[in-house]
């Protein structure tokens, strides 16, 4: 009797947990859900009252967005892909060797590591004005490479923290064996550490790509036409004359899709990287 009452209470709690989950999931994801649905509706369905949840989907808005004469959206998508990829590669190339040196030789570990980890806490707007003038002087305004450098700066702290955590987990015996064989530090890094780093490399790549893709402030300040990223370009569909709902929703959906998909794989690393920074930094 007692047991059955207990288990009934358990199943009620279990149901309540599910209710909370569904409610929270719907609430936080509502704008995404609503925008994605709108992007597949015909104009008639978009204006329907009350809003329709079931309709026959159309791709007309996607065609309109990618062929828009006013907004060169496919070019902006390409810009974001190039900027995020380059920025991520730069960050990896700069931080993996540094992480190795810091962990194995302790160089800069006590001062440089904390400084770099804390960089992500600075408001980026502080650097907006000097960057504008610097880029203007050297011709990097409105270029993909210019924004890729910014992406790199933004991603250096998280990449360094994750690589430091990784090198700490590489058994020192492997290094020592390579050293006895006469390999220099560079060679050990290249032949021993790099092959082992594939999983963490993937994690860094995912996070870094997502953060770069989502960057907005510097895209807004440093580009006007040729290097405009998706986050800035998508806002061009919202004009003062009014909003074209279908194309805007389609543009939004394209703009949020890559990080959403990568995020499905990347989210556990976000938790781990944040906590690792605190324990080891």
């Amino acid at each position, binding site marked *: 009797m007692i047991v059955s009452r207990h288990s009934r209470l358990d199943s009620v709690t279990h149901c309540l947990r599910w209710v909370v989950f569904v409610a929270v999931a719907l609430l936080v994801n509502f704008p995404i859900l609503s*925008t994605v649905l709108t992007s597949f509706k015909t104009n008639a369905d978009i204006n329907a009252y009350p809003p329709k949840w079931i309709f026959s989907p159309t791709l007309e808005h996607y065609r309109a967005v990618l062929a828009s004469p006013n907004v060169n959206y496919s070019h902006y998508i390409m810009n974001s892909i190039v900027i995020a990829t380059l920025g991520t590669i730069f960050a990896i190339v700069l931080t993996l060797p540094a992480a190795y040196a810091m962990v*194995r*030789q302790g160089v800069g570990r006590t001062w440089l590591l904390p400084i770099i980890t*804390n960089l992500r806490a600075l408001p980026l707007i502080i650097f*907006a*004005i000097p960057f504008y003038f610097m880029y203007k002087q050297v011709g990097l305004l409105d270029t993909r490479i210019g924004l890729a450098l910014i992406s*790199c700066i933004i991603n250096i702290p998280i990449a360094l923290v994750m690589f430091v955590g990784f090198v700490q987990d590489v058994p020192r015996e492997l290094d020592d064996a390579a050293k006895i064989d006469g390999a220099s530090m560079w060679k050990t890094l290249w032949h021993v550490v790099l092959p082992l780093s594939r999983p963490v490399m993937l994690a860094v790549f995912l996070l870094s790509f997502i953060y770069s893709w989502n960057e907005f402030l510097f895209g807004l300040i440093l580009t006007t036409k040729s290097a405009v990223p998706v*986050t800035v370009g998508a806002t061009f569909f919202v004009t003062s004359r009014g909003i074209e709902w279908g194309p805007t929703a389609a543009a939004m959906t394209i703009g949020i899709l890559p990080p959403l998909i990568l995020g499905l794989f990347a*989210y556990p690393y976000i938790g781990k990287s944040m906590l690792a920074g*605190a324990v080891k930094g």
Partner: protein
Amino acid sequence: MSYSSFETKEQASARALLVPLCLFLGALLGFPTLINLWYSFSDVSFQNMIGTFVGVDNYVAAISNPKMWQALGFSLKFALICTTLEVAVALVLVFILHPLLIKRPWMTAILMLPMMVSPALMGVMYRLILNEFTGAVPVYLEMAGYAVNFLGRGNIYKTVVAIEVLQWTPFAFLILLTARQTVSYELEEAAAVDGATGFRSTFHILLPMMKPALVIVIFVRFIDSFRVFDHIYVLTGGGPGNLTTSISIYIYKLFFVQNTLGEAVAVSILLLLMSLTLIVVAMRLVVRRS
């Protein structure tokens, strides 16, 4: 002797591995900071990009402008409210949902979707669904008998807070959930055997173990909300008036809208000093605790 020279050689090549990173950061963060410092003491303008020395004029202009204090006040208040709400809600949700999520990672993934979206695009999406006439949310509310203008003067502050909280509570949730999941099953069992169940085990065992994670979440969310720019910029541009002008938007407006460059740079330097102070204080707290 030979051993120590071998070690020195190792150290030297280790330093060499750090050089590219240091050079890069020096060129792209150190140098701009120096430019900023010089500009803050000069009469820089779009026509005169070198500027001539004018002493502390820019700082005087920055500090005596009440709008800077308004923007700072906005950012501080915004960060405090958002951080409190996010962390409190996330903590409660962790305890409710942990048993459900532990064997179903795909469910956690669904809750994480909002924080993968660019805050700027999130702002635009909310602008669409909150639109007074055609947005989904006002339409449903109207059907239920409520007329709410989310983007109007009276509600805009609550709206920008709500958007921030809805997008970033998942982040706080994820960090706290990760911390919660690292508390080992054995420890919970041991606590249960000792007679600590339900609220007692929550308050005496779980919460203390999650304390480092809590400190990190509070710090990261506070900093991020304090420097908020993206979603507010696309939603209101800082308006109506200066009602939603955060310190980041304030600097942006000084620079690109009003072209008062010197003042903008002076505010940047003040913001840098404040941020550094905050970071040093936070680090001291964390170090003392651990």
